[in-house]
C-alpha cells in the first residue's frame, strides 16, 4: 500500500530525528556526570545555579508575582522550611507553610525598622513550634523589604546565610533598578533623537507659500494646509512608532511643499508593495531620508533630479529604500557622520540610523550606497512582526482601512 510507504518514510524521518536527539541527550548526560566533580564543587554549582535562577525574577523588584517565582529558589538556597518575602508596602509572599504569614509580616516590619536581622524562637505554629530569622533587604541604604526564613531550629549558619541572601537580593533589586533606568535612558535617547523639523524647511516653505499668495491664492491655501498636515504629524507628541502608510503621507506633504520651490525639477517615483503599508516603523524614520535626499542630493544639483522611494516585502522583513540621482556624498564624510562625529550635514541620516539600531539591534542600521556624483541609495530593513509595538495613530482623517481620505 503506497500510503504506508509515505507513512513509513515519515516515521523513518521522525524516528531518525528522535534517535539523534536521544543520543545527543545521553552524550550530554554522560559528559555532565563525568565533569560534575567533587561534593564541594557540586554544592557551589548548586548554589550558583539557584541564585541565577532566582536573580532572573528579582530584577523587576520584589512585588508579588516576582517574589512568588523567586521564593522557590531562595527557599532551596537557604534550605529552610518556609520562606517569606515581604515588600516595602508590607505585602507578604510565602513559599511553604502559609500559616507563617502574619508572623512574617511582623518580623519583617521589625527588621526593616531596625535595619538588622531579627531572630525569634519558639513561634507556635499549628501543631508545633518553629524558629524564624528575618533580614532586611537594604538597597541604597533604605529597606525595600525583608526576607524571613522559618526553620526548626534556626542555627547561626542560617542566620548568617539569611543575612547574606538578603544582601544579595538587595544587590539584584539595585541591578534591576539600574536596568530600568538604563531602559528609560534609551527611551529618552530615542525621544531626543526623534527627528526635528528643520528650521530651513519652515523658512523655505513659508517663503514659497508667500510667493503664491498673490499669484495663485488657491495653491497658497493648498500649501498652507499641506504645511499644517506636515507639522501636525511631525510635532506629534505621543507614540514612538507609526506605519509605513502614515510615514508616506507625511512624505507626500513634505514633497508637495518642496515642489512649490523646485517646480518640475523634483521628480518622484514610488514603488510601494501594499503588503508593507501596515508595517510598523519608528516615527519619522523615512521622511528624514527623503529630506536628506532633497536637501543634500538634489538641491545643489543643476536641473534637479529624481527620488525613488521603494518599500517591498522581503520574507519576514520590509525593505524600504530611498534613492536619489543627486550629487552623492563623500563616503569618508558619511562614515564620520554616521560614526557620530562632525554634526551638521546629513544629521538626519545619523539620527535615523541611531534610532533603528537602538530599536531593532545593531544589524538593522541604515545601509548607504553612495559616492560623489553618483547619487545616494539609503536602505533600511525592518521586521514586519513587532507584536510589542503599536503604531500610534492619532489621525482621525485616516480611514478605517488606513487609506488616505481626501
Amino acid at each position: 500500500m503506497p500510503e504506508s510507504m509515505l507513512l513509513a518514510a515519515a516515521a523513518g524521518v521522525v524516528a531518525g530525528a528522535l534517535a539523534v536527539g536521544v543520543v545527543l541527550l545521553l552524550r550530554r548526560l554522560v559528559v555532565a556526570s563525568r565533569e560534575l566533580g567533587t561534593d564541594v564543587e557540586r554544592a557551589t554549582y548548586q548554589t550558583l545555579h539557584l541564585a541565577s535562577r532566582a536573580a532572573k525574577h528579582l530584577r523587576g523588584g520584589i512585588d508579588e508575582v516576582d517574589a512568588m517565582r523567586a521564593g522557590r529558589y531562595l527557599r532551596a538556597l537557604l534550605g529552610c522550611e518556609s520562606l517569606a518575602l515581604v515588600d516595602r508596602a508590607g505585602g507578604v509572599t510565602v513559599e511553604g507553610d502559609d500559616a507563617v504569614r502574619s508572623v512574617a509580616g511582623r518580623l519583617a516590619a521589625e527588621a526593616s525598622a531596625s535595619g538588622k536581622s531579627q531572630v525569634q524562637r519558639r513561634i507556635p505554629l499549628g501543631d508545633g513550634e518553629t524558629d524564624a530569622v528575618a533580614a532586611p533587604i537594604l538597597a541604597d541604604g533604605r529597606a525595600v523589604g525583608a526576607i524571613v526564613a522559618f526553620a526548626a531550629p534556626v542555627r547561626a549558619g542560617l542566620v548568617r546565610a539569611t543575612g547574606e541572601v538578603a544582601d544579595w537580593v538587595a544587590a539584584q533589586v539595585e541591578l534591576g533598578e539600574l536596568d530600568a533606568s538604563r531602559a528609560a535612558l534609551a527611551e529618552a535617547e530615542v525621544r531626543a533623537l526623534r527627528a526635528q523639523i528643520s528650521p530651513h524647511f519652515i523658512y523655505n516653505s513659508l517663503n514659497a507659500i508667500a510667493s503664491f499668495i498673490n499669484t495663485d491664492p488657491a495653491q497658497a491655501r493648498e500649501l498652507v494646509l499641506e504645511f499644517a498636515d506636515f507639522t501636525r504629524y511631525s510635532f506629534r507628541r505621543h507614540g514612538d512608532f507609526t506605519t509605513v502608510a502614515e510615514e508616506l503621507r507625511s512624505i507626500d506633504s513634505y514633497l508637495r511643499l518642496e515642489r512649490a520651490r523646485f517646480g518640475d525639477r523634483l521628480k518622484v517615483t514610488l514603488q510601494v508593495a501594499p503588503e508593507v503599508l501596515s508595517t510598523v516603523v519608528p516615527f519619522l524614520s523615512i521622511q528624514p531620508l527623503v529630506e536628506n535626499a532633497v536637501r543634500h542630493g538634489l538641491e545643489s544639483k543643476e536641473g534637479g533630479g529624481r527620488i525613488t522611494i521603494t518599500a517591498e516585502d522581503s520574507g519576514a522583513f520590509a525593505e524600504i529604500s530611498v534613492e536619489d540621482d543627486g550629487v552623492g556624498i563623500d563616503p569618508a564624510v558619511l562614515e564620520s557622520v554616521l560614526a557620530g562625529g562632525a554634526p551638521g550635514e546629513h544629521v538626519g541620516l545619523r539620527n535615523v540610523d541611531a534610532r533603528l539600531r537602538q530599536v531593532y539591534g545593531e544589524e538593522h542600521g541604515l545601509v548607504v550606497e553612495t559616492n560623489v556624483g553618483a547619487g545616494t541609495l539609503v536602505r533600511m530593513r525592518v521586521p514586519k512582526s513587532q507584536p510589542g509595538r503599536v503604531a500610534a495613530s492619532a489621525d482621525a482623517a485616516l480611514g478605517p482601512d488606513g487609506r488616505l481620505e481626501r
Partner: protein
Amino acid sequence: MNPAIGYAAITVVAVASALIGFYGLRVSRTTSDFYVASRTVRPWWNASAIGGEYLSAASFLGIAGLILLTGSAALWFPIGYTAGYLMLLLFVAAPLRRSGAYTIPDFTEARLESEWARRVTSLLVIVIGWFYIVPQLQGAALTVRITTGLPAWAGSLAVAVIVAVVVAAGGMRSITFVQAFQFWLKLTALAVPVIALLLVVNGGEPPAQLTPAEAFPPAAGPGDLDVYRTVSLMVALLLGTLGLPHVLVRFYTNPDGVAARRTTVIVLVLLSVFYLFPTAFGFLGRAFAPDLAAPGESDALVLLLPDRLVPGPLGELLTALVIAGAFAAFLSTSSGLVVSLAGVISQDLLGGSVRGFRIAAVISSFVPLVVALATESTGLAGSVGLVFAFTASTLCPVLILGIWWRGLTARGAIAGMATGAVLSGSAILGGAALSALLPGMRPFLEQPAAWTVPLAVLVTVLVSRGDRRGVPRGTDAFLMRLHVPEHTRHRAGPETSGRMPRQ
C-alpha cells in the same frame, strides 16, 4: 492524450508565474502618485489571494477524484475546507491581525513570553508546512505523468525547482496580486470545462443519460455515512484551517481587524463558488468515467475527463486549461508555503538575514521533494486532510486558547502541542500498523482529530491550571490589544481633533 498540450500548458504557466513574480508587479506598481501608492489591498483582492494560496492540489484535483472514488462521503471535504474559514472568522482573523505578530511562532512568543513555546511552535509550523507541500508535489507528479508521459518524478522536481528558485531569488514573495490572479485562473480553469462538459453532455445526440442510481448508488450515499468518521473529519478540517501558516500570513496584508474579517467573509463566498466545480467534475466522472475509480488514479479525473467527453480541438483546449489551472494550484500553494516556512526557518535558525532566507527557501522546497519522491500518493484530498488533522491537534488549541483564555501558560501550551503532535502524529504514521492489530480501532486511527483535539485542549488547560504562576505578566495588556478594535483605540487617543476640510 496529446503530450504537446501538456508541455505547452505547463511551460506557459511556469514561465508566466515566474515572470510575473519577478517583473510584472515591479512595473505596474511604479507610480509618482502617493495616493495610488498608499492604497492598501482591498478585501476583495486579499480574499482572492487567500483563495489563490489556499486552493491546492487537493482542492483542484483531489476532491473530484475522491468523489469519483467514494461518493458522497467526499462531499464533506469541500464543506470542511470552506467552513474552516468560518472558524477563522469567528475566532482568529481579527485578533490575530491586531496582535502585530507576523507568524504563529511570533504570536506564541509574544503571548506567552516564552522562548520555548516559540521553538516548539516553529518546529510544528515547519513540519506542517513540509507535509502540506508533499501532496502538491505529488499532484504535480501525477499531472506530468498523465499529460506528458514523462516519468512522475519530473513533475515534483520541476515544481520544487521553480518554487525554490523563484522564492530564493526574491520573486513571488507575498505578492497579493499574483496570488489573486492565480485564484481566478484556477476558478476559470475548472468552471469553463465543467460548463462546456455539461453543455456537451446535455446536447449530445442522443443526450447522454446521467442515471442518479449509477452516479450515486445508495451505498455511497449519506445514509451510509459513518458518524464518527464524518465528525472527526469535520473537526480536522474546520480547526485545521486555523493553523495553516501560509493562510495566516495573508491576514497581515489587511490594514486592520475589521478588514481582516471582511476579507474572511469574501473568502467564504469565493471558496463556496469554487467548490461547486470540482464537485460537478466528480459527479460527471462517476457517470462517464467510472473506470478511473482506483486509488491513485482517480485524482487524474479532472485532467482526463474533458478529452474523453469532447474529442477534437475543443477537448484539447479544455484539457490545456485544466492542466494550466492545476499547475497554477501547485505553484501558488507551494510558493506561499515556502515563503512562510522560509521566513520561520530563517528567523529562528539562520538569524533572519537575506542569505538565510534564501537558504531556508531552498531547504523548504527540497525536504518535501525528497518525501514526495520517496512515497506515492493514494489520494490528494485524503493526505491533505491528515495534515489538517495534525494542525488541528497541535496549533489550533494554542491559537484559540491564546486568543480567548487568560489562563494559558507557556508550559500548558507546550504540553498541549506535544500531546497533540504525539497522538495525532502516531495515529497518522502508525495507524496502518496499529489498525492491523486492532481492527476495531481503525476509524479512530484513520480520522484521529475527534479525540486528539479535545485531548490536546484538555492537557493544555490542565497543565496551565496547575501552573498558575506561569501566567505571563503581560497577559491582560496583550489580550486587550487583541480584542479592542483599532478604531476605538484611535478615538481614545489624546489628539483626535478634526482636520480642516478641503475644497
